[in-house]
Each structure stands twice: as structure tokens, then as C-alpha cells.
């Protein structure tokens, strides 16, 4: 057997040569970050696919339960993905049916009772007439074949069913390829109206027929209007409180306890304490400029600022107090600096890396961390939009919200890993 090791050693040496030469110029740093960016892009693609798989209509609900217009818009009549598998015993035409509970039950009935052609003909006719029975009824037929005689919608051959042993072909998978499928339409588009995700088209909302991208953009703008001020205010107040607490050598537990409290409890507290006159929130925030918006939604602003202040204060205090045990801090005190000055000038500077990294880490919460507060106070923002979309089962809108939040989180993870000194992820 040829000895590959010498070849591999020389190959790896050749590969490492440019990195070694340019290492002082930071090429290694750049190459590592570039490789990490490639990995992150793959991760983003996986997130997009996961978001699609979670929100695809036909995996959760049956397409026949939705309206025809919605079916066309969401492409629910198409197969979900390029490749699908079905039992070999079922006819190839079965793979062309749209996925969902109906198809699942039909496959089970065909395997148990045979007469595949008759079942398929009845199913296609029922789809055309929009008279498909409930999947639960089909499941009952699977359990009790005698029930079929009482069901008038079944044709004659299917009313006299006899259960059989599932043939061995029923356990073999038959792959089927679908060139036009929901994933392709969602990702790459199909027509001028449906441009696909790669061209920035997220489709239309099922509940109000408006473009998802517009709805999400407006809601996100409203959320950022009060989440950015509250985050900045919380950061500054938290830092000041942490410096003061470290100066007084207070324990960090009270801030920790405050930071772990559920936001709906803090929100309820703000609601009960600050809402003296029964503040009326405007129905729409489209016409409001930033000061009017903040004035109209002062209660959520207060609640969110309280939460952010507690979290920042808790973390900053621990980090700053840890630096006070270092020799440089003792030296600064010995040289005659006042404790507060030594804390703010030296301990804080030493802990600044962690402080900034933590701030970057919390950036995605600007968008996705305000759901409860927005729902509680009726802010027409991103979190409330996502909540309403889930309640109304508006899948394109849910997917749009998930994608925007994931994009924010993705950017934050990337920034945090790139700029932190000892990130595990970037090795």
C-alpha cells in the first residue's frame, strides 16, 4: 500500500505556507472569519429550509380544508419537495396527490383493502367536487370496514371492503421526483407575481391578502421604534446601576432575581402601577412620528426598559466586580484613585469586551423579545403580528416573521463570534 502520509504532510505544508507568510498581516484572522461566514451561510440556508418545513401548509393541515384562492396562493396543491417516497404497492399516480392528512389516510386504506384504482378515482372526483370527507372518517373506515356500507359518498365497489394482509411491496419505498413543488415555488418563484424568496418575495398573507414583506416591514419598524430606545436606556441605566452596586459592594442577587422574572409579570406590574388614568392606545401607529409613538406607547416602553435594565445591571455588576480582584485595580486604589473612578476608568474598561459582547448577543431580542409585552399592551409590532398570524393559522406570515427573526439572530451570532476574542464557534 502506498504511503500517503508523506504526501499529506507535504500537501498540508504547502497549504499552510501562505497562511504562515501572511499571518503577521492578519490573513489567518481573515481566512478564519471568511470560513466562518461560509459556515454561517450554510446555517442560514438550513434555517430557511427548516422554516419552510415547519410552515408548509400541507404538512400541518389538509389542502382541501383551505379555500381554493388560498390553495393557489400557497401552492398547497403541489407536492412539498423535489423528492418523495411512497410504498411500492401504491400506484405511481398516488405520488402526484398533495400531501396532508387525506393523502395519508388514503394510502393506508389502499394498502389495507386493495382496489387502488377505485380509491384513486373516487379521491380525484371528490377533490374536483370539493367533497372530501373528514380524515377522521377515513381513519374510522380503516378501523371498521363495515362502516363503508353506510357511507353514501363511496361508490359501490368501495362499499364492500375486505381487509387483507399488507403485501410485501407495501414495505418497499418508491421514490418519486417532482420538478414543480412547493419548495421550488417558495424559494425560486414560478411567475412574475411569485418571484420567490431569493428575489425577496415572501408571498401574500392568507388573512388580509397583503404582501407579507410589507406587513412584516411595517410591524418591525413599529417594534424597533420602542425596543431600540428601551434597549439603549436599559444598557445605560444598567451600567450606572452596576457601577454603583459594585462601588457599594452590593450582592448581585437582587438584579439577578429581577432579570429572571417573566416579562408578563413585570408587564402586569407596570400596568397596575403606572396606568393611572386608563391610557388609551391608538388603533394604528402608521401616522405617528417617533416622539408621539413613544408617548402613546409609554407603558410598554417602561416595562421593556425595566426588564433590560435588570438584565444588564445583573451581568455588568458581576463582570465589573470580578475585575476588582485583579492586581491592576488594587494598584490603582493604592495610587490614590477614588474607588468610583477606579471602577469606571479601569475595571469597566477591562470588562468592556464582555459588556459589548453581551450587548451584541441581545440584539436579536430587539425584534423577537417583545412578543409578550406587545400582546399585553396592544402595540402593533412584530411580536403581536407573529402572535396573530399563529392564532389565525396564517402560514406565509408566520414564515415571514420567523425568517426575519432568524436573520436578526443569525447576524447577531455572526457579529458576536467574529468580534469576540475566544469564541468556540470560530475555531
Amino acid at each position: 500500500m502506498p504511503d500517503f502520509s508523506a504526501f499529506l504532510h507535504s500537501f498540508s505544508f504547502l497549504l499552510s505556507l501562505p497562511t504562515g507568510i501572511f499571518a503577521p498581516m492578519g490573513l489567518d484572522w481573515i481566512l478564519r472569519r471568511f470560513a466562518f461566514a461560509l459556515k454561517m451561510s450554510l446555517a442560514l440556508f438550513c434555517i430557511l429550509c427548516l422554516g419552510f418545513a415547519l410552515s408548509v401548509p400541507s404538512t400541518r393541515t389538509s389542502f382541501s380544508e383551505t379555500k381554493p384562492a388560498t390553495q393557489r396562493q400557497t401552492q398547497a396543491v403541489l407536492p412539498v419537495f423535489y423528492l418523495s417516497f411512497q410504498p411500492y404497492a401504491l400506484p405511481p399516480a398516488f405520488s402526484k396527490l398533495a400531501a396532508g392528512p387525506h393523502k395519508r389516510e388514503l394510502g393506508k386504506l389502499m394498502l389495507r383493502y386493495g382496489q387502488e384504482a377505485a380509491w384513486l378515482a373516487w379521491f380525484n372526483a371528490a377533490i374536483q367536487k370539493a367533497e372530501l370527507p373528514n380524515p377522521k372518517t377515513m381513519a374510522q373506515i380503516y378501523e371498521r370496514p363495515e362502516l363503508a356500507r353506510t357511507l353514501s359518498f363511496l361508490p359501490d365497489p368501495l362499499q364492500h371492503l375486505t381487509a387483507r394482509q399488507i403485501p410485501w411491496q407495501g414495505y418497499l419505498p418508491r421514490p418519486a421526483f417532482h420538478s414543480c413543488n412547493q419548495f421550488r415555488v417558495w424559494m425560486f418563484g414560478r411567475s412574475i407575481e411569485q418571484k420567490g424568496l431569493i428575489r425577496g418575495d415572501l408571498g401574500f398573507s392568507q388573512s388580509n391578502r397583503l404582501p407579507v414583506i410589507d406587513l412584516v416591514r411595517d410591524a418591525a419598524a413599529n417594534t424597533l421604534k420602542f425596543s431600540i430606545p428601551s434597549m439603549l436606556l436599559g444598557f445605560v441605566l444598567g451600567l450606572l446601576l452596576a457601577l454603583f452596586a459594585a462601588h457599594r459592594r452590593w450582592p448581585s442577587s437582587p438584579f439577578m432575581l429581577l432579570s429572571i422574572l417573566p416579562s408578563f409579570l413585570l408587564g402586569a406590574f407596570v400596568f397596575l402601577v403606572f396606568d393611572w388614568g386608563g391610557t388609551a392606545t391608538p388603533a394604528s401607529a402608521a401616522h405617528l412620528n417617533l416622539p408621539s409613538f413613544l408617548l402613546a406607547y409609554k407603558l410598554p416602553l417602561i416595562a421593556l426598559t425595566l426588564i433590560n435594565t435588570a438584565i444588564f445591571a445583573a451581568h455588568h455588576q458581576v463582570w465589573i466586580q470580578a475585575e476588582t480582584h485583579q492586581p491592576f485595580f488594587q494598584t490603582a486604589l493604592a495610587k490614590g484613585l477614588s474607588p468610583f473612578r477606579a471602577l469606571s476608568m479601569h475595571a469597566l474598561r477591562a470588562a468592556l469586551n464582555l459588556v459589548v459582547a453581551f450587548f451584541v448577543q441581545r440584539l436579536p431580542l430587539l425584534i423577537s423579545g417583545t412578543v409578550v409585552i406587545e400582546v399585553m399592551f396592544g402595540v402593533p409590532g412584530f411580536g403581536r403580528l407573529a402572535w396573530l398570524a399563529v392564532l389565525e393559522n396564517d402560514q406565509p406570515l408566520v414564515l415571514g416573521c420567523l425568517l426575519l427573526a432568524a436573520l436578526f439572530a443569525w447576524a447577531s451570532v455572526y457579529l458576536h463570534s467574529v468580534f469576540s476574542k475566544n469564541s468556540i464557534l470560530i475555531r
Partner: protein
Amino acid sequence: MKTSVLLSRIWLALLFLGLLFSWLLDIQPGRIPNLPNSIPPGSAQALLGTDHLGRNIALGLLHGIPSMLILAIPALLISLFFALTSAFLLARNIIPRLPILNLGLGLVSGLILLASLPWLPIFPFWLLLSLAGLFFAACCIPLPGPSLSLFLPTLIRMLQLILLSIPGMLLLFSINPNSYLELIFLLGGTSWVALGQFSERSMIDFFRSTEFENARSLGIPMFRILHRHLFRRLLQTLRPQLAWLLAGFIVIEGSLGYLGVGLPSQHWGWGQMLRLGLLHSNLWWSWLFPSFCILFTVLSVFVLLQAGRKSGELSPHNGS
């Protein structure tokens, strides 16, 4: 013993007692006896009063205990399992050296690649997947000399990146789980990354320590070293992290209950009680008692698990 720790222990003991009662009495929201609406607390019929629909608040609170614990504790165990496994694999850099598996992976990837070439314009996803498969298969080949195996660490790092980039609450919204099992796995399976990173750092420190080297040179089996030295110490170090996670799960359960989404339809918890109570805020007992229950539980878990820590868990000098 500190008063806060003592109070926390008493509260958690009461919770477990409530759990026992709830199982013994088999309390279900549908079976709660219908009483007159809005009875204030202190009456003989209902100790903590009834809500606007005449449901007994005390029985509702008792039913909320198993809903919360059934969700939070298994999810925490699943998170811990994922975190420790991934940390161990990454810290020891364990690489699968299974030539048949690698060969099979390479063959399948190559076949998919060949099959996708004629369909290139409409087949981008499978092309990407097969290229990735080929890359991983090539990396796994157990060649002599320097190891090129990158498969498992790369996969775990990628999984960590994906999980870090998914907003948890919105993910639960989108999936809208149908059963507790689904929800438990979702919660546990998406929340282990921070715990895993922390464990990995601790494990790397341990494997580089002279203590580990000495134990190995004495011929002590790996399992015994892990069991007696690493895991016991690691669980002590992880206590504050576990406190955060458990309290976080309780908060998530309450928040989802408050919002009324992302929980199985049969779920009835303190979050729902609080939401309905705040809708009728004049009945102060209907929102006050659930609020106190959530507040005390979160604080007790946090205080109790934090009590054992030796130093600041967020300190930059102890590896966090």
C-alpha cells in the same frame, strides 16, 4: 442556612406536595365542580375563591403544578444530555472511524450528484446536499498519517450555529406542538447550546489537567474517570446554568400559557389563569394567586440552584 434558601425549599416542598395531591385527586379542568361565579377568597366553598366562570382557583392552581413540572424537568434533562454529549465529543475530538459507513455515505452522495447533474437548473438543493455529503465522506476516510476527519465536530458546530440563530419562542409559535412530548423535545432540543459550550470549556480544561494525565497513567478506566472526577464536578459547576435554564423553561411555559399559543390543547397552567384573571382585573384574586405562584416558583428554583455556587458564574476569569 439563609432564610431565602429555607423559604425556597419550603415552597418547592409545597409544590411537590401539590403535585402529589393533584395526581391523587386526578384534577382535570373540565371536572372542576361548578361553583357560583366570582366568590371572593376565604369562603367555605372555595378557599382561594372562584373566577368569573365559577371555577375553583385553588384547584386550578393545583392542576397547574404537574403541567409545569412535566414540561420543565424532562426538557432540562434532555438539554443536559445533549449538552454533555456534544461537549464530550468536541472536547475529546472523537471521530467515527467506520470505513464501511464512510464508503456508503460517499457512494450515496456520488449517486445523488450524478443523478442531479442533468437536472442542474432545477435541482440546486440536492446538488448542494450531495456536494456537502461528498465533502463529509472525504473527510471521514481513515487515511494513515495526519487525520482529516472533521465530520462530527463540523456537524455539531453547524447544529450549534443553527440552534443559536433560531428564536426559540417564535419557533414554538410556528410549530404549535400537539403534544407534551413534542413540546418537551422541542424545548430541550433547542436550548442546550449555551450549556454545551460552557461544558465544553470545562471539559477541555479537565482533559488538559495533570489530574487527568495522572489518572490515565495509573491505568484507571476512562468511564471511572468521567464518572468519579469529571461529571460530579461538572454538575456542581453547571448548577447556576441549570438554574437559569430551569427557570427559563418555567417562564416559557407561563408565557406560552399567557399568550394562548404553542401549547397542547389539553394544557391548563398558571399562565392561562393569569391571562383570564387580568381580563377581569376587578376580581383581584383571580390574577393575584397565579402571579404569586409563578413568581415564587421561579425565584425558588433560582435561589436554590444558585445557593451552591462558589463564585460568580458570569466571571470572565472562570471560563464563562
